[in-house]
C-alpha cells in the first residue's frame, strides 16, 4: 500500500497510508535521502509497516493529479468571472 511522508519530527516520520491510516516510522527505516511528500510502497510485516519500494513514478503521478485539480479550480473561478 502506498503511503506519503506527511511530516518529519526529529527521528520519526508520519506516514499517511492510502487506507487513511497514520503510522509513525523511524526515519532510519526510510530510504535516504527522503523528504516530505515522498511516496513509498509499504507492506505490513510481523514487525510492523516496512518500505518495500521507493516508487518515484507514483509521486510524479500524484503531483500531476494535484496540479490538474488546482488547474480545474482556477478554470472554474475564471469561468465564473467571465459569466
Amino acid at each position, binding site marked *: 500500500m502506498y503511503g*506519503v511522508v*506527511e*511530516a518529519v519530527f526529529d527521528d520519526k516520520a508520519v506516514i*499517511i497510508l492510502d487506507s*487513511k491510516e497514520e503510522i509513525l516510522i523511524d526515519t532510519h527505516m526510510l530510504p535516504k535521502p527522503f523528504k516530505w*511528500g515522498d511516496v513509498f510502497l509499504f507492506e505490513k510485516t510481523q514487525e510492523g509497516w516496512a518500505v518495500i519500494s521507493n516508487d518515484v513514478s507514483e*509521486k510524479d503521478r*500524484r503531483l500531476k493529479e*494535484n496540479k490538474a485539480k488546482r488547474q480545474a479550480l*482556477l478554470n472554474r473561478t475564471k469561468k465564473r468571472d467571465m459569466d
Partner: protein
Amino acid sequence: MNRKRKTPYKRTASKKRPSGQKGNHSLLKTVLVVVAAFFLGLLVERYDLPFDGLEARWDQIVHSIRQWSNTVDFDPSEEEYVVDIRVFDVGQGSSMLLKGYDGTTILIDTGRFDDSEKRIIHYLNDEIGVGGKIDLLIFTHNDADHIGNGELVLEYFQVGEVWMNGMDHTSQTYTRVLDALLASNVTYVEPKRGETYTKGAFTIDVLHPQQDATESNQNDESIATRLSIGDTQFIQTGDIDASIEAEIAHERPYAVSADIMMIGHHGSRYSAGMEWIEAVDPAVAFYQAGQDNSYGHPHQEVLDRLEALDIPVYGTDTFGTLSLTILSDGEWDLTTEEE
C-alpha cells in the same frame, strides 16, 4: 483562566468624519485616482520622463489613496469595535481569525494536520457560530501545520473564497484540501505580490509570492499579506525567511508598516529579521508555537530583536489563544487564555 488587561500602549482614536458622507467615498476615490493619473501623465509628457520608474511611484500613489479611503470609510461613532483578532492556540501550527466591524471574517490557516481534537472547528464554532460564514480563507502555504483540517473547515463552514500559493504537493493533507475545494463552490484565487483586494471593510495588500514565483520551497512561497481596516493594519508572512522579508521591505516599503505583526515561521531565528521588524514598526507582535516544541520556537534571537525595539511580544505557547480587540475609541484590549 481568562485574563483581561489593557495593553501598555494606547493609540489615538480614528479620524472622525461627519455622518452621511459614506456613500460619496467610492466616487471620491475614483475622482482622486483619475486626477492623479492625469497629473502623472502630464509630468511624463512635459518632462519626457521614463515610464519604468514611474510605474512603482504610481503603485505607491494608488496605494496611498486606498489606505486613506480605508481610514475615512470607518466611522468610530457608529461601531463598537474596528477589528477583533484571534490568534488561536493550535499547538505548533498556525491559525488566526480577523472579524471586521462590518461582519467580514477572514481566516488565515487552519492549524495542524494531526490535531486530533480538531481545535480549529471548536474555535470557529465559538467565534462565528456553527456553520458560520468565512468570507476569505487564506492558506499561506501547504505545509501540514498550516492547512490541517482545512477540508473540515470547508465542509462545516460557509467559505466564500480561498487563497492558496499555487505550489503543488503530494501530501495527503494537501490532497484532501484540494478535493474539498473541488467539492465546494468556493472561489479559488492564487494572489501575487502587488495585487490589492477588498473584502468588506478590509483592504488586503498581497506582499508575496512574486508574480513569477519559481517553485523553491513551500515556506518561501508563503502568501504574505497586510490587512487594513479603519486605520489598523495587521501583517502576516506565513513561514517566509528573513531574506524574503527584506526583499519585500525594500520593494514595497509603503505597504509593510503595521500595528500588529505576526512573527514569521513560529518565531524561527531565520524569520523576523531586524530590517523587517524596523520596516513594519509594530506596536505589538504575536507568534504561534507549541509548548516545549522540538524546534525551540520561538528562538531567543527573535525575542531579543523585538525587545531591543521595545515591542511587546505574546505567544500562544505561553499565553494560549490571544484575543485582541481594537475598539472604535482607539483603545486596545488584549485578552489571553492563560496567565
